[in-house]
């Protein structure tokens, strides 16, 4: 496995050559990846909003946004500007402090989880040892923010929406974590980089989706439920609860919920790509192509091409999944709350436990294919 491009190393080296101590050079480097990831995540939200409008329009045989920029690309920007300039209303009987704190608690874990999304061997903010577990832990904080905003709005629809959101995310966290655990069992590591590396070498045939045919379905269902996408958008079911926990919100506080839900969807799609679709891997291993063309693995331009291809592949896979999620929005009807909880506790949980057991058994029986 070639190390790829080490931007951090070269950046720190070049700063050191200016005569800065290594500690200061490291501190100067630290904000860059975070800033890039924040901007990237926000741009991802813009793209996603535009895609959602365009694909929804296509699904309903409309044209969708057309005049705001070429193909309506600037429509999300117009949305954002509108929300920025909107009056920030706090209802008179609401609990002002919790009302303001709620949206922040919902958004922060979603952005924080981008820490562990890898776009290449070194293209990750931190390769922490507990990688994917950090995401599960962080996403479990979100229901507190939802309950907080539901309670603080002092509105029965909001409270019901908040309670539904909490019940939903508690129920679907378990199948999600268990299906991730099966992957972790196969790659012997919680780190996202190790999980991708375990799938490399055989191109598309090595991806985990072939080894976890049940696991990836459970993960996708649970991830959709965690993101509150249709068919699992009960917390904000507009026919029953007006808009659930966001009913009383306007302006930037509403925008935080809006951004949070889209960031969460992008994040889930990215992690699905990392866990099951080989992350930054191309359909055919780059090393094989390079060997076929007689190019050395350490050629600088090949490394640049590989890095660009890696980022492109990760995004391509993630946006393919987002496309499926948007199509599902216009294909399947919303489930009822009892059906939702039945599906989570009585079907997905036992199936994911059995999946974990079978994975463990296969790992013992065929250590070659299942990472013994």
């Amino acid at each position: 496995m070639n190390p790829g491009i080490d931007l951090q190393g070269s950046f720190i080296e070049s700063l050191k050559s200016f005569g800065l101590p290594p500690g200061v050079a490291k501190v100067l480097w630290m904000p860059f990846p975070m800033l890039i990831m924040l901007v990237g995540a926000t741009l991802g939200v813009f793209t996603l909003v535009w895609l959602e409008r365009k694909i929804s329009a296509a699904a309903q045989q409309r044209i969708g946004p057309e005049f705001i920029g070429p193909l309506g690309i600037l429509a999300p920007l117009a949305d954002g500007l509108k929300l920025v300039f909107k009056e920030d209303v706090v209802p008179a009987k609401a609990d002002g402090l919790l009302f303001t704190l709620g949206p922040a608690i919902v958004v922060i874990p979603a952005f924080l989880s981008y820490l562990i999304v890898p776009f290449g061997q070194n293209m990750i903010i931190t390769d922490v040892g507990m990688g994917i577990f950090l995401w599960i832990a962080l996403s479990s904080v979100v229901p507190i923010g939802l309950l907080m905003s539901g309670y603080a709005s002092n509105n029965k629809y909001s409270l019901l929406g908040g309670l539904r959101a909490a019940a939903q995310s508690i129920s679907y966290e378990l199948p999600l974590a268990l299906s991730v655990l099966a992957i972790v069992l196969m790659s012997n590591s919680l780190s996202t980089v190790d999980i991708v590396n375990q799938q490399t070498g055989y191109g598309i045939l090595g991806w985990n989706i072939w080894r976890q045919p049940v696991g990836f379905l459970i993960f996708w269902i649970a991830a959709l439920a965690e993101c509150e996408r249709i068919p699992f958008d009960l917390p904000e079911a507009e026919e029953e609860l007006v808009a659930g926990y966001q009913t009383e919100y306007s302006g930037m506080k509403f925008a935080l919920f809006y951004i949070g839900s889209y960031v969460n969807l992008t994040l889930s799609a990215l992690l699905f790509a990392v866990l099951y679709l080989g992350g930054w891997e191309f359909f055919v291993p780059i090393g094989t192509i390079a060997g076929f063309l007689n190019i050395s693995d350490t050629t600088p331009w090949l490394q640049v091409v590989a890095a660009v291809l890696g980022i492109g592949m990760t995004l391509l896979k993630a946006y393919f999944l987002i496309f499926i999620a948007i199509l599902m929005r216009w294909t399947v009807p919303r489930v009822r709350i009892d059906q939702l909880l039945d599906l989570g506790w009585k079907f997905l949980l036992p199936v994911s436990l059995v999946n974990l057991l079978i994975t463990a058994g296969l790992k013992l029986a065929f250590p070659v294919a299942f990472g013994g």
Partner: protein
Amino acid sequence: MNLAEGVQIVSFGILSVMMLGAAIGVVLLDSIVYSAFLLGGVFISIAGLYLLLNADFIAAAQVLIYVGAVNVLILFAIMLVNKRQEFQPVPRAWIRKAATAAVCGGIFALLSTMVLSTPWAISSATPAGDASVVVIGLHFFSDFLLPFELASILLLMALIGAVVLARREFLPDDDFEKAQAEALKLPERPRELVPSGRNETVK
């Protein structure tokens, strides 16, 4: 003192103040909802302290279990209970308060003597860091096997208990009095036994 140590000391101070402040708020605030939210703050600060101790897996587990599950369930319970009850002054309530104070004082005294009498030798072993998951796993299956298994049995008991309680059908208040007469039996509406499958379709 280099940069890393300075950051560590400052974050230790901030986390301790956050934790103590939130914990005092949990006890002293009148609104139970605020107490529950502050409890989440206490758990998060403890997770931060674990991070400072190089125990990142424990920190993430703390967030997942205490913030994500325990605290959410507490909030859930508080918000689902909609019982409006007049507050009735209890006669001789001071006995209860005095007993609470005695127990709390006793625990505080015990913990302080423990804190003061422990030598607190700082271990010179290198922290496990990213490999801590493996080390914890090895301990679970060797010298900590019994506590681990006991904890799992406890959780299993709680699980079965929750299922038993959840299967109980709701009884109106007047029936409840009668059912209470039979000691050691959960008040339950008599129902026909369903041969198999999902019982909510047969009612």
